[in-house]
């Protein structure tokens, strides 16, 4: 470091001082710095202040006071946790809110064309089944495993939804799978609510199909429930 260079860095003397004190200046630059310091009392003042500040910090650390100064105030310490908790809650709520929309389309569809759009090549309807509460009907509807195709489920509501819509859920009963659900429009002209199931998502076993009107005042207890046995 030549004299002129030191002069040029005088505007940021703190940087040079800190590098010198930390031993990060090369030996030749350190010697030049010491020479410069000997002729500039204002730099000596600056060095003294820096060393006093450092010593003050060291004293605080030795007295165990420093760590407390580097922590958030107690009144605010809960804020990061609250913020994190709110993020978790918001994420959970988002997942729960989106779950029907994100999982249902993977299994249940409102039309064969929707299914074809999501799974090209699976448009073939390999079976159609009617689920209706009629006197003498079987408790369980047998469904042939469709494999790579789709099945059509025509569900007859026992309660007409005045506002039109229904929620259809498909739940595996042996606890080896989750629930897929989808919101539909009003029943068709034939009185049935029709949905399509991606056969590739089904496995052998029993499933519950439930249907509940979306209009206010209806609860899960009002659902029409059917069992299909995929085999």
């Amino acid at each position: 470091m030549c004299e002129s260079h030191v002069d040029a860095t005088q505007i940021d003397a703190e940087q040079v001082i800190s590098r010198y004190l930390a031993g990060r200046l090369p030996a030749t630059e350190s010697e030049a710095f010491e020479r410069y310091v000997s002729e500039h009392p204002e730099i000596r003042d600056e060095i003294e202040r820096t060393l006093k500040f450092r010593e003050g910090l060291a004293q605080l650390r030795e007295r165990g006071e420093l760590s407390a100064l580097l922590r958030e105030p107690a009144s605010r310490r809960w804020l990061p946790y609250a913020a994190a908790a709110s993020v978790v809650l918001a994420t959970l709520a988002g997942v729960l809110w989106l779950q029907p929309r994100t999982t249902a389309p993977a299994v249940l569809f409102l039309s064969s064309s929707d299914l074809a759009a999501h799974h090209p090549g699976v448009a073939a309807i390999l079976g159609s089944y009617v689920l209706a509460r009629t006197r003498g009907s079987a408790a369980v509807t047998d469904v042939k495993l469709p494999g790579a195709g789709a099945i059509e489920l025509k569900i007859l509501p026992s309660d007409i939804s005045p506002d039109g819509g229904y929620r259809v859920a498909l739940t595996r009963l042996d606890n080896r799978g989750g629930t897929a659900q989808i919101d539909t429009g009003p029943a068709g002209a034939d009185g049935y609510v029709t949905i399509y199931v991606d056969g590739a998502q089904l496995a052998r076993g029993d499933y519950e199909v439930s249907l509940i009107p979306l209009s206010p005042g209806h609860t899960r207890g009002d659902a029409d429930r059917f069992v299909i046995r995929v085999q």
Partner: protein
Amino acid sequence: MGILCLDDKKKENTPLEALGSMEAIDSTVAGSDEQAILRNMAGLRAQLARVTGNIELASDLLHDAVVTALQKLRAGEISDPTHLDGYVYRVALNHFRNYRRKDKSRLETSEDTPEPSDETESRVVTDVEVGQWSRLVKQVLQEVRLVRDRQLLVRFYLQEESKEDLCRAFGLSELHFNRVIHRARDRFRELLQQRGLSKSDFLSIVAILLLAAGV
């Protein structure tokens, strides 16, 4: 207080003949207000005490710097006597750097500065002026609103992390870094001035040294 010559070669090269004896100089300086000299280099003395681990040795090193400067003056190696104080500080800084270099590996591998281990070292922490510095530093830190900025100051000044590393670690711009450092430094200077702990009276050192040198 004795004179500590750390380097035998340096001692051999000292132009004692031209100066009379080292002891004579020592007694002359000691007869002057040496405490005033030490007080004006209090920050450096505190750091010398840290790197040597001995407050007495730190004082001896400063005293050696004074004697060396007087020798240089009498030998005609210092052309401008008004630079005598600067020369003293230069020599003292050089001592600091040499000890610091020896001590560097220990400081780098130790997260905490070693606790004072004996009665002599404990004098460092009981020094009245040092106690005032720590109170002022505490006040400066308390006035820094963001904890992150306090951590920045500690890591820069105490842990000696580089500006580049800290900017990277905290995700700060150079401008923000400079702002934090300069505000703290200015505030510390202001507080030192308010309590009469700021300005080093280097002129008085020169007067003392010139008197001791008989110039």
